[in-house]
């Protein structure tokens, strides 16, 4: 499998603090790749660099063979990377449908075509029946799925998910996991997710990268990573694998 996203010796400093330290890894095309690690490990900083919120201090990020580091967030999205936010930020005053239409309009000129595509995406995310509600009226699980729907509507090749399972009940987590798995299987969508909910990570990921203090401490298939001594000590804790 060829790499869709290639992170090459990327570093980011905030004043004295090194948030991401010469990080390198590759996300294979068509895979579901999870980044885990304790709070402050640099996961969201990594995401923000990929999504164009800020540029890395050094290193390179390549997507589909082209450099994307330093591009603005809208340009990154137009290259084919969709993202969600850790703290969900749907457009509150807009209806669920209009939220998704905004995403669908990226590659569609006409609102009618965008609406048709939005309906398709909303059905996949189990939100079709709520399409006329205001986004601000949704429950947290629904808002999380709306974020995914909105990003998906931009027809990304790579979807960045920033803790979409956080704060959800196990049944809700399983629901999103099933949806994401189906998307990955049916449309070949590559997914890169940051996640704390190990239940979701283990069910979803084909590969896991463990970050600690901005650097990789382990990378591999889920079953290998959870047995890694360094991972257990720094993040999972002994009871997680018992």
């Amino acid at each position: 499998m060829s790499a869709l996203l290639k992170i090459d010796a990327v570093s980011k400093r905030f004043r004295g603090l090194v948030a991401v330290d010469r990080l390198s890894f590759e996300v294979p095309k068509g895979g579901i790749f999870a980044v885990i690690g304790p709070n402050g490990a640099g996961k969201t900083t990594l995401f923000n660099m990929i999504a164009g919120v800020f540029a890395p201090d050094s290193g390179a990020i390549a997507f589909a063979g082209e450099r994307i580091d330093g591009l603005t967030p809208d340009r990154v999205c137009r290259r084919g990377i969709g993202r969600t936010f850790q703290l969900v930020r749907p457009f509150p005053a807009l209806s669920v449908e209009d939220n998704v239409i905004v995403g669908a309009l990226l590659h569609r000129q006409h609102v009618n075509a965008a609406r048709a595509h939005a309906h398709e995406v909303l059905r996949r995310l189990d939100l079709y029946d709520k399409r006329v509600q205001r986004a601000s009226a949704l429950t947290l699980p629904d808002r999380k799925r709306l974020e995914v729907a909105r990003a998906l509507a931009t027809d990304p090749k790579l979807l960045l998910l920033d803790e979409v399972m956080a704060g959800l009940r196990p049944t809700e987590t399983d629901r999103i996991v099933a949806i994401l798995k189906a998307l990955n299987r049916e449309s070949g969508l590559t997914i890169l997710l940051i996640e704390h909910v190990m239940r979701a990570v283990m069910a979803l990921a084909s590969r896991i990268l463990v970050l600690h203090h901005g650097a990789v401490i382990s990378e591999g298939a889920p079953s290998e990573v959870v047995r890694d001594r360094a991972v257990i000590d720094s993040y999972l804790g002994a009871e997680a694998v018992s």
Partner: protein
Amino acid sequence: MRAMWSAIPRRGRVILLVLVALLLTAPLALDRYFISVLILIFYFAFVGQAWNIMMGFAGQLSLGHALYAGLGGYVAALLWFYFGIGPWLGVFAGVAIAALFGAVIGWLGFRFGIEGVYFALLTIAFAEFTRIAFDNMAFTGGAGGLFLLYDASRAHEWWNLRGGPLLFYYLGFALAAGAALLTAWLARSRIGFQWLAVREDQEAALSLGIDAFRAKMIAILISSSMTAIGGVLLAFYYNSLFPAQAFDISRSIEIILAPIIGGLGTIFGPIVGAFILTPLGEGLIALTAKFGIDVPGTKAVFYGLTLMVIITLRPDGVWPWLKRMLGLDETKP
């Protein structure tokens, strides 16, 4: 256009058609005074709509819209005054100059991330220094003002805006109606959705591939151009221009009151707001004049009180409430 019409509920279409018919035939029954009030209502509905595109849809607060109206009016009036170039041509020059100022303000604000109240301060600053410049430029008449001669022998030249109140009445009506149609069309188009996204959450909009800078620039260009057209109309209606009036912040505030009271980000908000506010303001002037208590600033205080009352009672503006009352609201909560 057809999609826009079919989006209006049946009852709404009937009400709309009746209102349009009433306004078109109203001059037959009304005297000059009421026609002059309606002309002002149309003017404020029109420029309010222009401001609404920028604030209500794209979420960019401008407190200096008098700048565009003043520039449009002055440019067209100066061309007429010095070269005899009619406003039907002068309006293009007025719009171009106003749009140029809009582009500079937009570029400065949106390129350098001057947002919210700071952007509003920028718009005020431009209006203020333009006012000071016009106060001191001899060829614009300076602080003493610019006067257009009203020549009765040319009163038939409607294309030069040399006509009576009826001309301005129907022109004002056409502009207000045209602006509402344009806004409705924009709101249902790609750029309309992009504006809403930028207004709601710019960072999220960027993450969906929206070029927020471009979207906001389009908004300020359309808004400043429309406002300049309104300024041309007013300049030839009053036949006089004074920097202290044309560019004053109180003028900018007058422009933004109707859409705020009527309902930001709605098509009918600026129209409803203008129909509420302008008659109240004009009625107040008539009353105070009658009782001889006409003190400068009375209108401003009155507008302020009206704004406070309506915003307290209907924070989203009158139109969303009125829409529900008339049974025209089909969206579910």
